[in-house]
């Protein structure tokens, strides 16, 4: 009897697929259930945000950039505002800096809660998704109370923040911090030690730290591989050097570690928020900005630590009211191009690919822009 003849075939995962978190098309070459190769096709969500920003004023760019990475729109606001402030060499009031840190960290928690939910859902546990979003709702309510929107905040502006927090914000924020801290034990209880969860996550999607750095992978994915790289510590921006927090780090670089790093980061963010709320000074929330904001000609690249890695903006100004070039950089972009590297030839199954994709926490608007 001759050898059984098998052949590889191709499967389109996406653009409409429940676990590609948006509209990403992964062209899989399959050998039975095994994934031989994966080629990501992106661009289904390309809105040319960079081009749009080129013919908007600096103030108008911020709501446009809200849509750049809408899960953590605060970071998008902030990174652009930071670039513009750096170009104009502008000082920001201290209260505004504190508020920015509070908002950024709240948003990081919100993003990681979504990660928690969607990852659990991609691996098949449907209930944690609702639990994660339930607590995210508390944060989103805080945002709405402050800036009036739940997703696209347009809150952090050039020179500060758009408006001061309402009176009831601080107690409500403390309460939310307390509740999320308590609920974390629920999250961990339902998944962390669950044998099925461990079987699905441990040892899957191993990232090599050196390769990951070379491919530009950053954020929790890199930290889970044992590289202590957190821009809040390494390249401090805003007032992060005033706060006491640890960089969450794990060493194996598999899906399970990426998951744990993010849960740890929620804890650290809660710590930062508590400190920031304690030290919140009084004062202005916005620096004086000239009538028509025109930063001097020049260029600058700023980067911040977003929940998905390094988020950066290369802002080129020609001295007019509109930026000449806004080159945005998101963590998902590099992580998605790194994805084939860790999947190719490792014999992962389609279910593993889903788990890897989920723990890379790729969102497509950040890739497609």
């Amino acid at each position, binding site marked *: 009897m001759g050898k059984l003849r098998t052949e590889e*075939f191709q*499967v389109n995962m996406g653009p409409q*697929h*429940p*676990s590609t978190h948006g509209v990403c098309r992964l062209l899989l070459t399959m050998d039975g*259930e095994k994934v031989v190769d994966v080629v990501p096709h992106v661009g289904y969500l390309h809105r040319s945000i960079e081009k749009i920003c080129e013919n908007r004023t600096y103030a108008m760019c911020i709501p446009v950039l809200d849509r750049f990475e809408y899960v953590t729109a605060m970071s998008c606001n902030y990174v652009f505002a930071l670039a513009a402030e750096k170009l104009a060499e502008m000082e920001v009031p201290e209260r505004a800096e504190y508020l920015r840190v509070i908002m950024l960290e709240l948003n990081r928690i919100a993003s990681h809660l979504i990660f928690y939910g969607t990852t*659990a*859902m*991609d*691996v*098949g*546990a*449907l*209930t944690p998704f*609702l*639990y994660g979003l*339930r607590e995210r709702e508390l944060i989103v309510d805080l945002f709405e109370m402050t800036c009036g929107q739940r997703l696209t905040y347009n809150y952090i502006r050039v020179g500060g923040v758009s408006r001061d927090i309402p009176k009831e914000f601080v107690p409500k924020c403390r309460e939310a911090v307390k509740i999320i801290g308590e609920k974390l034990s629920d999250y961990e209880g*339902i*998944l962390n030690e*669950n044998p*099925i*969860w461990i*079987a*699905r996550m441990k040892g899957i999607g191993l990232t090599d730290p050196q390769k990951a750095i070379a491919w530009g992978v950053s954020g929790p994915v890199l930290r889970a591989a044992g590289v202590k790289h957190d821009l809040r510590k390494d390249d401090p921006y805003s007032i992060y050097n005033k706060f006491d927090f640890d960089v969450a780090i794990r060493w194996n670089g598999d899906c399970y570690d990426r998951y744990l790093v993010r849960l740890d980061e929620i804890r650290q963010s809660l710590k930062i928020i508590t400190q920031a709320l304690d030290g919140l000074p009084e004062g202005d929330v916005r620096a004086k900005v000239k009538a028509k904001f025109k930063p001097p000609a020049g260029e600058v690249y700023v980067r911040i630590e977003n929940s998905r890695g390094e988020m950066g903006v290369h802002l080129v100004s020609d001295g007019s009211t509109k930026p000449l070039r806004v080159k945005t950089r998101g963590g998902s972009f590099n992580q998605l191009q790194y994805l084939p590297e860790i999947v190719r030839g490792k014999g992962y*199954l*389609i*279910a*593993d690919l*889903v788990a890897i994709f989920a723990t890379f926490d790729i969102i497509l608007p950040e890739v497609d822009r």
Partner: protein
Amino acid sequence: MPLVLMSLELIEIFRWAYGLLAELGLPPVWVMLISYGVIGVLMFGVLALLALFLVWWERKVAGHVQQRFGPMRNGWHGWYQTIADAIKLLQKEDVDIIARDKFVFFWAPVLCFVAAFLAYICIPFGKDLIVADLNIGILYIMAVTTFTVIALLMAGWGSNNKYALFGGMRSAAQAISYEVPMVASILTVIIYAGSLSMVDIVQSQNSFFGWFICRMPFGPIAFVTYIIAATAEANRAPFDIPEAEQELVAGFNIEYSGMKFAMFFLAEFINLFTVSAIAVTLFLGGWEGPWLPSWLWFLLKTLGIVFLLMMFRWTYPRLRVDQLMEFAWKFLVPVTFANLILAATMKYLGWYW
């Protein structure tokens, strides 16, 4: 007649109705045909309603576990939500894809639906409340429930869709693997009951400590392994890899729409009830129980098992396909066979009650 209805045992009503029918003076063949026809229609109706109820219940359980409401719109707590859904699905366009295998594609949902109902011929719903007490009862059930696998494989192949084919193949592999531990745990019970007939099995566990789940130490092990294997047989999470929606979108039923989809969907819930009913019959004493009428006991116990399976689904992540196979062959099969040998030895030595 009033006296009959007072007894609360459904079988009395059937007996009374049958008596009325017999007194009409029809030829015995006609009496038989009419009575079987009525029973068939009744069974179909009751099971279809039961499936709709289970769908609703599942949604309610999911809702409450997730701190939502679940269906709330139609009627009290949305009680006729699933009926409305079924009617909506009936009206839906039946999307007929071009590249399908027409025959296989059409008959797969029908076979799935029919196979789901066949098992109920010999499931005792109450004392004497059984359509036909076959002396090979449990064997028959095991045989006909396997039809579902063929139906799912047909659906996967006929759809001419790679995801559907994945689903169909996974379903076949899974069902074949889990059939083994399932039968092995059932055999443990059969050794003690000494019969394949469902009625005999129930009658052999006539007190609470006679229930097979209470027979130490093999009873609980057999029960747990049966429940695990049954979850896999019914394609329920955490073993729902044939339709794993995050991997295969919807698996074998990805190309089905309208009523064909509804048939798969209802068959799934009927299967859920089937495996729970078998678990109750084999391990939890079937209809046995004090005070309440026997059919109610049966229903309560079965719904209890169904609830347990639902909680599994809403709590646990899904296993990967190779882990699923590994679990079946490397863990469940050895455990169930060891358990079977243990039970047989104890039976031989007479160490049981």
